[in-house]
């Protein structure tokens, strides 16, 4: 297929006097991390396929400030957050979708106190809504039919924001065998990246947190791990690779699973 994938930018639309329905907040990982970029691309393709009226901020987007705030650096958080809110309010943004649970949480729960009020959805919720409203159909008999898939609840989508069902509903439609991990939903185990851990070495201990989670994943017998967070994907992929199971167990974002299932290329 030679579809031309479009990624409109807010500034261009504004110059043409247009306001898109929804802003796709890409996030630092989605923009720069080679692995997370693939998720960004997959989600962009779905947005295109479903004819969603969206745009990105592009160069005008900054880190939401989540890791700085959780590390304790409120100054850096406020600087980047207030800058973002200036930009978002300038474009009169009302609705935001993001594929990063940390961006999602900060935009949704922390920006209001700073003067940024938006309707924020995570891409798993957005995708589920596309399916519910018939805009997106998951093709039957896809590549995942009969495969054993497990789902890793990220802390900031799961326990922190209480989204457990939307991602699972999507997985059920992929015609696979969903196996739950021992620690799931409210009891889900962290991948080890949150709270700015991603950006520093571990404190002394006898194991890395991502290895603890990876062992549980390997025990489940699943060959595919569905995740919803770029940082979880990095941590779990590292764990799988360190266990030398990278040929047997694949770590994917839900958007990638849909793209692969539906053959959107």
């Amino acid at each position: 297929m030679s579809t031309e994938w479009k990624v409109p930018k807010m500034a261009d639309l504004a110059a043409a006097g247009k306001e898109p329905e929804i802003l796709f907040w890409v996030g630092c990982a989605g923009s720069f991390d080679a692995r997370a970029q693939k998720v960004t691309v997959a989600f962009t393709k779905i947005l295109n396929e479903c004819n969603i009226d969206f745009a990105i901020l592009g160069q005008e987007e900054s880190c939401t400030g989540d890791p700085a705030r959780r590390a304790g650096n409120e100054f850096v958080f406020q600087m980047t957050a207030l800058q973002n809110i200036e930009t978002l309010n300038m474009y009169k943004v009302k609705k935001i979708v993001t594929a990063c649970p940390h961006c999602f949480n900060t935009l949704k729960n922390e920006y209001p106190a700073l003067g940024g009020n938006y309707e924020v959805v995570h891409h798993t919720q957005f995708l589920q809504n596309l399916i519910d409203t018939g805009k997106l159909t998951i093709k039957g008999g896809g590549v995942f039919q009969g495969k054993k898939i497990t789902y890793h609840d990220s802390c900031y989508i799961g326990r922190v924001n209480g989204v457990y069902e939307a991602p699972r509903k999507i997985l059920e439609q992929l015609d696979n065998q969903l196996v739950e991990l021992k620690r799931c939903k409210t009891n889900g185990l962290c991948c080890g990246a949150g709270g700015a851990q991603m950006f520093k070495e571990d404190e002394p201990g006898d194991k890395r947190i991502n290895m603890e989670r990876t062992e549980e994943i390997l025990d489940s017998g699943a060959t595919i791990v569905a995740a919803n967070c770029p940082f979880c994907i990095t941590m779990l992929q590292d764990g799988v690779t360190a266990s030398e199971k990278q040929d047997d167990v694949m770590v994917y974002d839900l958007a990638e699973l849909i793209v692969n299932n539906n053959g959107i290329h």
Partner: protein
Amino acid sequence: MLLQQIFFALVTIYLSYRAFNLFSRIRRNILLGEDEDLTDNAPQRWKNVFLIAFGQKKMFKRIVPAVLHFFIYAAFLATQIELLEILIDGFFGVHRFFADKIGFLYPVIISTIEILSFLAMIATVVFLIRRNVLKIDRLHKPEMKNWPTIDANLILFGELALITGIVCMNGADVCLQEVDPQNYHHTGFFAISSWMGPLLFGWMDAGFLQIVERFGWWLHIGTVLAFLNYLPISKHLHIMLAFPNTYYAKLNSRGEMTNMPSIMNEVKSMMGIGDAADAEAPPADEELPAFGSNDIFTLSWKNIMDAYTCTECGRCTSVCPANMTGKKLSPRKIMMDIRDRAEEVGANMDCGESQYIKEEVRATAKKITKENYDDGKSLFDYISKEELHACTTCNACVEACPVMINPLEPILKMRRYEILTDSAGPKDWVPMFTSIENNGAVWQLPDARDKWTEELN
């Protein structure tokens, strides 16, 4: 009889007064924290109290300890009726005051108490076994050494004493109703002591039975009064604080860290946005304000109430990803440390020595207040930076706590102190901070943020 009445009144009033003072002291210690308004949305707060505190909803995530604990909890609630009767009997020198006033309800109530007490006894024995024989992992972490373990066992033995008291008191009473109906009126059938009383005490004569009855009665009320005075130095305080602690638990999203308006306004005026841009800059000679928390005075009162409510069950620590992978962080220890520090400060304030007043105001200060307190120590003497740095903010501890304690909040407040006031923190974080500040991204990369769009087609 009159002598007993006077003795009872003196002991009860004295021990209640003493307990009241100890509780007032804890209230004072809690209020050493910063003010925080947690009174919005009262209907939701009452709902939480009903479901989580009274209903024990969060306990039931672990079914075995939840059911066992529920027996003890239900017995505790039901026994309050019997306790009320004991107090009336004690003060007015009567015997089983309610017996001839509420008719058939009396044996129903007493039977309920007896059945629940029997279940509570089983639960207590199982708890002793879990703690001391099976050595359940979460009950044997490093912070549980010495006093916390003794404390836990003392509470369980105290519960056995309460139940023993009821068995003796009711069992002997049932026997006495047969041999001395003049003084021991028939009360109706008691579910357990009506058959267990004769079995245990049936061989005794009236005099002996009276001794056993009085022994049980005094053992029960004595243990209650002892508990009342013991609670303020024990993890068992949760039987009281669980209720207000649940009521005052934060209702906003777990994902929201408390905003710091002072920093927000400063950054706003720096960036020249909003009303803050017009506000005058603070005078330059003013002392740099401290941000975050290094001691109980800069935690909120709710953080300190959390610490006093903690019953050291360790559910938080057992689900903490850092702790289970061998890091030093234990959310339970954080709460125990805050409580211990509050106790230390409280004790120093009570002793009133001027060495605990800041040097610069020592000459003029009349007494120790939370504003002028200084003992040269802080929470950092209890909680190490290594512990603080290990937290992933995953909220598993917050989710796990059955009494709505939030161990994450003080951890993050102390991180703020370390970074903002001490300008310290893990050096690995510095590039992330500078990169966000200078490039608007967590990594310092040469590429444009939207470079991925170029490779899309």
